[in-house]
């Protein structure tokens, strides 16, 4: 028995798979309405924005050197507001506004990367500062002069805007099929099968050796933060389309969840370790848990609390696994 337990805990993917099955059965049996086609397909739509942010964190944390991005929620809010204001107030077409919004978010990520790589300021501090800076920017953009100096959400989008967030194909939400899954596949390829992915793992697992092996640590790190900015902006677009309104504070609670999913999925805070597969599994588990808690009427606030507990537990688990490895 102990041997099996050891093996389960020892292999992250197996552990997550077991966890998934466990919670799935638990919820299916004890929570009414969980195990229905509607619910199962419905809950996947919440997973998209969260998943994008978690994947963003994954790449950033993988790059090591204390890599972390606290500004993911803020970039998401900012991109959402840019798109919202451009379409809703400036009357721009979607085909123009969306790319601009995505570009804005990507640039914010790039800025993070540059600050981190060219100054010696720890990523924690840089993204802490930009977290507040970017959300402040989002608030400023949201100010509608017609209504005074207060930030206002934007909700007057044309119907075509909602295809992204509210459309379904065979009951499966559009954004899952056409955004999340393709992105996951692309990132999977990027991380496991490209030279860039190689370099990323190298920089994260041993920065000095990477430098001595001819890898440009700077370029790799700037790239991951830029990628993070892009993914967050994408999430901002999707959620705006889904809830039919652009709000400047839309990203505030996502930070903790994104990091929790990444860490639970096996991404080591030290860098150089982690897989997309693990993160996706963790995403599924967390989404399931949230959904289950929602349906059974547990208040959102307690959900956040439970999430905090899960985060700490997940990191503890990581520590145990690393200690067992005896390098």
């Amino acid at each position, binding site marked *: 028995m102990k041997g099996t337990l050891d093996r389960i805990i020892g292999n992250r993917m197996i552990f997550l798979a077991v966890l998934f099955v466990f919670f799935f059965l638990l919820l299916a049996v004890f929570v009414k309405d969980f195990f229905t086609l509607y619910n199962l397909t419905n809950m996947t739509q919440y997973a998209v924005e969260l998943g994008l942010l978690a994947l963003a964190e994954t790449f950033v944390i993988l790059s090591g050197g204390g890599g972390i991005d606290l500004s993911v929620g803020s970039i998401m809010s900012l991109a959402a507001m840019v798109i919202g204001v451009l379409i809703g107030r400036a009357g721009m077409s979607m085909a123009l506004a969306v790319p601009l919004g995505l570009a804005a978010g990507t640039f914010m990520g790039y800025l993070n990367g540059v600050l981190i790589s060219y100054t010696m300021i720890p990523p924690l501090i840089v993204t802490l500062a930009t977290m507040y800076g970017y*959300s402040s920017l989002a608030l400023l953009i949201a100010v509608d002069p017609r209504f005074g100096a207060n930030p206002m959400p934007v909700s007057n989008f044309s119907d075509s805007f909602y295809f992204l967030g509210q459309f379904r194909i065979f009951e499966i939400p559009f954004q899952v099929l056409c955004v999340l899954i393709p992105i996951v596949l692309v990132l999977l390829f990027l991380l496991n099968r490209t030279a860039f992915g190689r370099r990323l793992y190298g920089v994260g697992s041993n920065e000095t050796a990477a430098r001595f092996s001819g890898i440009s640590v700077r370029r790799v790190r700037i790239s991951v933060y830029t990628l993070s900015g892009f993914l967050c902006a994408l999430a901002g677009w999707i959620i705006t389309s889904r809830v039919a309104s652009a709000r400047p504070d839309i990203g505030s*609670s996502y930070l903790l969840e994104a990091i929790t999913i990444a860490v639970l999925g096996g991404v080591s805070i030290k860098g150089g370790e982690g897989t997309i597969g693990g993160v996706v599994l963790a995403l599924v588990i967390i989404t399931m848990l949230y959904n289950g808690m929602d349906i059974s009427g547990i208040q959102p*606030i307690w959900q956040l609390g439970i999430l905090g507990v899960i985060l700490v537990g997940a990191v503890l688990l990581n520590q145990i696994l690393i200690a067992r490895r005896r390098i």
Partner: protein
Amino acid sequence: MKTTVRRVLQMREVTILGVIIVLAVVLSLTTKNFLSTSNISNTLLGLSGIAIVSIGMTLVIVTGGIDVSVGSALGIASVVAGKLLMAHASAPVIVVAALAAGFAVGMLNGVIISYGNIPPIIVTLGTMNIIRALLFGVLGGRWVSGVPRTITPLGLGRFLSLPIPFWIALVLIAFFSVFLATRSQGRAVYAMGNNADAARVSGVNLNRTNLFVYSLTGALAGISGLIYVARTGIVQTNSGTGFELEVIAAVVLGGTSILGGKGTLVGSLLGAALLGLIQNGMVLLNIPALSEGLVTGGLIIVAVLIDIVRARGARP
């Protein structure tokens, strides 16, 4: 004599004081209201909460850690105070309860960080959200307002025409400055931040030091929560959100190095003063309050950058 003068001038604290004076002069010349007693008094009142918690945050950052949960700790302490006020509890009970609430949060952080060996950012990020959730739960999503004036003097009272909270801050800073200088636990904090390995070998108990700095920070956040309720008379669900950024900004502006090992309480007080001045200036100059995040975030980056450039220049 000359070397002493030069050394004094090189001190970070003096530089900040200089900036504060310059900024104050500029503001008094460009705005009508800056020099009025009410404005100065309000500014001091506003920055007291930050100054108080900056004591603990300075020590936390000196040990190489960080605490983003202070806002939630402040929140929960203010909720506890608010609820007890509405229940007509006596002042001493309220004070102790609020302190205890903050202390408990800090202790929780300290325990998990020490014994779980988890990075402080992760732990305090987790507790920040957990405590905020708890706060919502206790308040039931509503605000508390119109509290009895049992502890109001704490927040709005004056002594020698300066707000009481400001005096509290001064007293606490003086007390802890002496503490750091005269107790080995104080030295241990700086030793840990300078060279944790050497400290451990010299017999410093790193876990106890961690417990100390984080629970102190929590307790101080509790005091600030108390003052907040006393000042405003209301308890909101989002009391204290964004507070942690201001405290970190004050500490960093005050010369504490983000990499650990270096920082003074007086410096953080001056940092808080500078921050308060800038915020006051923004209000007087009609810069939208929404830009606060941009300004504070930018300040943090600039301050840390200056520190890093200086450190690099000083190395032999």
